[in-house]
């Protein structure tokens, strides 16, 4: 039985083997693919065929050991499905040579799993494309590769050659496989000027991803396809030697480069005159024009001086600025006009180049800056000062403190001008001031939630009512002076539309109501929308909180009184109004100021105590920075200035003898201290982000910011100057009545005093 079973197995296996085996490689004729390199020469008896063999490769110029891809296409031929294709390094004379004998290394053959120069297919149907990967020989020279196809079998195999083959030039340079860059123009060390054309030729077996043009190590441009030609404007570079480098990257990531030097030799160009020069020239011309006109008008006035007899002594004293301008006045005009011109020029530069010219930057990572800076500080400061007018108006009308009547108009002028400057401070802080009107277009939509919009609303109402207050109360004087100052008759008449003598009573009544309204709005402005801009922002530790409201109010009223004191003192001295402005008002204002300053210091104590005791880290860090850290050298001198001024003013209030000069100096110190204190409110919070994962930041204003801030002060001075020269800043009709009733000033010497 054993023998029978063996026979059965064999009987089954043999047919299976015979049936299946031909499907494997084992029975293929010839030398067989992948068994050994085949040189195709020698003993086989071959005849030419009609097949056509062609070869392709991306680049014939290769570096040593660079990878090369050779594609062999065979088409045509009239014999069977078996085709053998081989790469050889020589066709004639026989024997052909295998490529490795001359230095080629085959890294992949068409089978995908071998490295042979011979490959055979058994399903040739008239067209085939086969690909070999090789690395070039390691030595320089010319190396040819040919392709040869054998087909047919049995007794009459046929062959076809690609007789031309591929002639590879193996050259120097570059990392194997990397692109080879050569710079056609300019040549090394060539002298160039004007626009130079940089032309490169790049050889690469792998497609080029991109080529970089670098000058002095800085990438100037890139190109990702032919032609690799750039036009470079050499006038952008200083005369002298510069390095020029072209680096090409292929899609494998390998790169090759060529570096040369060029000598830039441009004739010294005429520098274009920068814009600021034009602005300064324009500013100067403007000032010269104003001065010339003023001098001319002065001459005319002197000639017509005799024809202005109708003013009595008191009036001439009160109208001093309208009648004469002396050297200090012209100096104020010229300096403030220069400041205004500076403002316009610098603002133009900032608008065209961007706020990058300031020291402001984004907070957090990576810029670690402060997005708001001294423009916002300036804004708050000006708004604070702008309360001066209403403080005086409220004192005079609502509280009936008549002794401040003489300075009422001065204070109101201060309000109007500084409010305008506050608005200007905001506009100069905006990134796109050309879109300011959008705030008005979308007002109804945004008023529900945006503190900035509330701010605009209140400021607009405040400035309108202040202008109206100033204007309505000035009508009486304008009517009185209309005939006495023929120079201004046309202007005054224009402004006096609808004037009747009997309007005074109603105007006074309306003025009373305006004063009351403004008094309420003070609390809603400086104790309201302005602090709410900051106090409602939970994101900023150090801002968020309820103390901001009362604190800002105290600061604003203090600044306001200090500014009024300074303004009145300067004008009183400049125009010799000692007889018309009682020195006692300084005492009254100084006393009120001392109370406000100590209230402000008391609120500061509240604030810092709260942030020091057991506050969240974010608040504590800011307080530490103010009291002991980054800002300490700034904070304590400011507190000292505030305390010192308070001490002086308080002492002055209770002293027996009163010296107004000290009060004025204390007021100047306070104005400066409050500007600095506003800085210490705005910036430390922004440079110490609440999110503890951010580092703290730094902020230093630049000259652009200082210029614009100084510019706003200059414009304010200019506007005050112009008003004072055109309108009576001191009440004339009212003063006249005082003298008639025997109250007020004494007559001085008979001859007109030497007024300014």
């Amino acid at each position: 039985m054993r023998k029978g079973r063996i026979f059965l197995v064999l009987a089954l296996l043999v047919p299976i083997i015979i049936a299946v085996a031909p499907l494997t490689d084992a029975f293929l004729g010839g030398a067989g693919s992948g068994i050994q390199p085949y040189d195709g020469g020698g003993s086989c008896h071959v005849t030419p065929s009609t097949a056509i063999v062609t070869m392709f490769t991306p680049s014939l110029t290769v570096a040593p050991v660079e990878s090369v891809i050779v594609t062999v296409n065979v088409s045509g031929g009239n014999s069977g499905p078996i085709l053998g294709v081989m790469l050889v390094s020589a066709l004639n004379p026989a024997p052909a040579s295998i490529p490795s004998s001359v230095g080629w290394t085959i890294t992949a053959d068409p089978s995908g799993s071998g490295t042979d120069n011979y490959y055979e297919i058994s399903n040739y149907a008239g067209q085939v494309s086969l690909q070999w990967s090789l690395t070039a020989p390691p030595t320089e020279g010319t190396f040819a590769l040919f392709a040869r196809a054998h087909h047919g079998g049995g007794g009459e195999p046929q062959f076809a050659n690609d007789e031309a083959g591929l002639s590879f030039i193996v050259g120097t340079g570059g990392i194997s496989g990397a692109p080879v860059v050569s710079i056609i123009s300019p040549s090394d060390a060539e002298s160039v000027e004007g626009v130079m054309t940089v032309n490169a030729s790049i050889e690469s077996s792998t497609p080029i991803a991109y080529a970089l043009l670098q000058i002095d190590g800085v990438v100037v441009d890139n190109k990702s396809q032919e032609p690799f030609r750039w036009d470079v404007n050499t006038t952008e570079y200083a005369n002298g030697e510069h390095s020029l480098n072209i680096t090409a990257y292929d899609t494998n990531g390998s790169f090759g480069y060529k570096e040369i030097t060029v000598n830039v030799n441009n004739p010294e160009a005429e520098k274009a005159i920068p814009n600021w020069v034009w602005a300064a020239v324009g500013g100067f011309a403007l000032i010269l024009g104003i001065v010339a006109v003023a001098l001319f008008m002065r001459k005319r006035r002197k000639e017509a001086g005799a024809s202005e007899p109708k003013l009595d002594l008191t009036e001439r004293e009160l109208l001093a600025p309208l009648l004469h301008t002396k050297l200090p006045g012209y100096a104020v005009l010229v300096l403030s006009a220069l400041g205004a011109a500076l403002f316009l020029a610098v603002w133009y530069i900032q608008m065209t180049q961007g706020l990058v010219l300031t020291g402001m930057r984004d907070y957090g990572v990576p810029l670690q800056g402060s997005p708001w800076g001294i423009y916002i500080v300036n804004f708050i400061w000006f708004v604070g000062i702008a309360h001066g007018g209403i403080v005086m108006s409220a004192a005079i009308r609502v509280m009936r403190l008549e002794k401040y009547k003489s300075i009422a108009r001065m204070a109101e002028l201060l309000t109007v001008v500084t409010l305008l400057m506050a608005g200007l401070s905001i506009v100069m802080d905006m990134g796109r001031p050309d879109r300011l009107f959008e705030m008005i277009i979308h007002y109804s939509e945004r008023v529900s939630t945006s503190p900035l919009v509330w701010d605009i609303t209140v400021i607009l109402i405040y400035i309108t009512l202040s202008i109206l207050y100033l204007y309505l109360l000035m009508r009486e004087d304008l009517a009185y002076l209309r005939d006495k100052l023929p120079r201004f008759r046309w202007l005054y008449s224009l402004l006096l539309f609808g004037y009747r003598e009997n309007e005074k009573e109603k105007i006074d009544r309306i003025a009373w109501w305006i004063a009351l309204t403004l008094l309420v709005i003070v609390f809603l402005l400086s104790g309201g929308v302005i602090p709410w801009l900051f106090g409602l922002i939970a994101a900023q530790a150090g801002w968020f909180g309820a103390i901001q409201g009362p604190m800002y109010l105290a600061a604003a009223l203090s600044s306001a009184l200090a500014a009024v004191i300074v303004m009145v003192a300067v004008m009183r001295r400049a125009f010799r109004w000692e007889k018309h402005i009682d020195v006692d008002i300084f005492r009254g204002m100084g006393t009120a100021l001392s109370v406000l300053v100590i209230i402000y210091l008391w609120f500061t104590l509240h604030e810092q105590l709260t942030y020091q005791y057991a506050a969240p880290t974010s608040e504590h860090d800011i307080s530490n920075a103010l009291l002991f850290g980054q800002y300490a050298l700034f904070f304590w001198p400011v507190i000292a200035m505030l305390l010192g001024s308070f001490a002086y003013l308080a002492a002055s209030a209770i002293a027996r003898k009163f010296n107004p000069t000290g009060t004025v100096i204390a007021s100047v110190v306070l104005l400066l201290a409050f500007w600095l204190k506003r800085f210490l409110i705005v910036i430390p919070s922004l440079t110490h982000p609440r999110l503890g994962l951010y580092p703290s930041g730094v902020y230093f204003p630049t000259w652009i910011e200082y210029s614009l801030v100084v510019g706003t002060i200059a414009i304010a001075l200019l506007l005050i100057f112009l008003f004072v020269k055109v309108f009576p800043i001191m009440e004339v009709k009212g003063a006249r009545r005082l003298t008639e009733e025997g109250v007020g000033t004494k007559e001085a010497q008979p001859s007109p005093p030497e007024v300014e």
Partner: protein
Amino acid sequence: MGFLSIGVVLVFGIILAPVIILILASIFGKPRNLRVTAIFLGLFGGLILIGLAAVWLLTTLLSFVMP
């Protein structure tokens, strides 16, 4: 309640209240002088409009300056 947001109540209720009172006082307060009232109210509205027009003019001019 949607219309009566924080801002609306604040601005039109609290901030503008004294202004409304002012306007009413200027009309009805003694002594009655309608000419002065008209000048006042006309200037009030006029100044606000001039202010808005000035803002519009400024932004238009600035749009030529900004890049």
